[in-house]
């Protein structure tokens, strides 16, 4: 009956990355707010596992799904299956394959535009510091968001007259790896004046290396996503700017959209969230705090 409690499932591509945990937090919070139950699955970056998770969710009788897919191209059979089972799906973080329409909503960040904005900001930092070489610590380039960030950033560098001296990727997305990468990058290219960090751990690692080398502030660091650690570094001046991605917000909005679909309320199929830049001087401002509340869970 109508009183029966609905369940929303969150399928993450992998849950060992904090970003996807925070999306999950948003889904969970919003589900609670809407009176729904919450379950979560992880796909371990395997499209087969992702499909299995969808089927298990159906077996378990969930009513709606919020998914961060392994990749856009992995979505068609999944969407076909869920459509057949009549289950609303919202995407968070990564959208479905372009051209598909059989989904409820896609709540994503505009990675290309962010890449462009962050690229310009990074280049400006380099120029302020008397150089035009920039380095990049990237997400694995097999990810679509990484490819879009890079494309935007490269265009910005070209437009602003900076050169990308080196781009290095990490697989594990740990600070430790990023430290090694940043060390190696600065050894190979000592003229780099600003570092573009594509995710939090990259920025943290770069800041760490600069501190060790006594270069804090002399080489600029920008980072995308945002986390308590990078906000701390921002306040200390070890990082010059963060482009926040609203992980929690994506979970909240995605959940709201599937809830709307279940209750017959209107839905928005494409929600591309902007990623606002916050610098050290603005981090305590009310607007920034409002953004940050939609980035990661409060420390409770």
């Amino acid at each position, binding site marked *: 009956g109508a009183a029966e409690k609905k369940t929303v499932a969150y399928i*993450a591509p992998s*849950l060992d990355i904090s970003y996807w945990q925070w999306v*999950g937090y948003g889904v969970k919070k919003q589900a609670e707010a809407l009176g729904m139950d919450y*379950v*979560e*699955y*992880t796909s*371990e*970056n*395997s*499209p*087969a*596992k992702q*499909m*299995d*998770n969808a*089927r*298990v*969710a*159906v*077996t*378990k*009788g969930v009513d709606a799904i919020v998914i961060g897919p*392994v*990749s*856009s*191209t*992995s979505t*068609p*059979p999944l969407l076909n299956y869920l459509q057949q089972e009549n289950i609303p799906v919202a995407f968070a973080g990564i959208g479905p*394959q372009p051209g598909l329409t059989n989904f409820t909503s896609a709540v994503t960040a505009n990675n290309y535009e962010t890449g462009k904005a962050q690229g310009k900001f990074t280049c400006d930092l380099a120029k302020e510091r008397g150089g035009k070489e920039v380095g990049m610590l990237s997400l*694995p*380039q*097999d990810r679509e968001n990484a*490819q879009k960030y890079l494309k935007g950033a490269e265009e910005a560098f070209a437009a602003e007259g900076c050169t990308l001296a080196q781009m290095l990727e990490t697989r594990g997305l740990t600070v430790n790896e990023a430290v090694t990468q940043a060390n190696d990058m600065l050894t190979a290219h000592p003229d780099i004046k600003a570092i573009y960090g594509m995710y939090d751990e990259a920025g943290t690692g770069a800041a760490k290396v600069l501190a060790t080398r006594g270069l804090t502030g002399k080489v600029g660091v920008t980072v995308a996503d945002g986390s308590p650690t990078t906000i701390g570094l921002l306040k200390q001046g070890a990082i010059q700017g963060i482009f926040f991605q609203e992980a929690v917000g994506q979970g909240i909005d995605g959940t709201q959209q599937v809830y709307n679909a279940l209750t017959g309320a209107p839905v928005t199929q494409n929600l591309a969230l902007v990623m606002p830049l916050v610098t050290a001087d603005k981090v305590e401002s009310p607007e920034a705090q409002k953004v940050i509340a939609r980035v990661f869970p409060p420390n409770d």
Partner: protein
Amino acid sequence: MTSSPSPAVRSRAPSLLQSYRTEIAIAAAIVALLLAVGFFVPSALSMGNMRNIAQAAAPLVIMALGVFLVVVTGGIDLSVGSVFSLTGMVTALAMANGYGSVSASLAGLCVGLAFGAINGFLVTVVRLAPFVVTLITFAVAGSLAFIVTNGRSMPIADPNFWLLNSGELVPGLPNHLLFCLVAMVAIEFLLRKVVVGRWLYAVGTSAGAARLIGIPVQRVKFSAYVASGLLSSFAGVMTVSYILNAEATAGSSLMLQAIAAVVIGGASLFGGTGTAIGAVLGALMITCIQNGVNLIGVNSFWQGSVTGIAILLAVLIDRFGNSGRA
């Protein structure tokens, strides 16, 4: 020949119950697990969920069989997950370039053939340690999976390709199940009834003694690596036919799972022991644990712990339910 009558040595084959004690213990553990999950989530015992498990287990089963063939000879194959991914990419790429699904699948299988042969060559001719050799091909195949499409994942357009996985050559039996059954039965038959199969065990139990009785040790080992490569490629093709999408990271968690399946199934990494059925059951057990964890809705942070404890319980059932091996 002598006056004292010698007591006859029995030649009757041991009963299936005796030969497959470990396997029966694992099967019992799986059933116990399913019932336990079913207690919390009744739909776990539904036909639909059995289909889920079968679908999820199929590629792992095929790969575990391949890894088992190598492990029986005392080797190891770390490259299977990467070969699985690369096969998917090659197959999807071939189709994207206009090849039909049959020739694309064959191209995919060539990946396994090639990497199996390279592994076998480096182990048997160059005489490098299997761990090092397959670690190298693990890295190389994993990297090639990105290189071939420059990191892009590849959707598959051929509308009939899914039939390879989910069609029914035998009515009522989806193909992925059919393939698993055929592979298991064929390999178990090979290992028990075909001389080459007995040679695989002989090589694993003592390569030196095997050589002296005329067993072509290096050729036997080589074949095991090729078979393992081929089977992981087959699993790769089967999976893209299900997902209709190829991803460079698709197999990254499968290597450890396949080896774990083999070892949980009773094989020793020192070679010479285990059965194909055991490897299959090991793969099933891993899949069932994951399925159960998901159905019960275990918090994802806890999943590792719960999975670990479940495996521990399963091997303890085997260890103590099976006094003969104590």
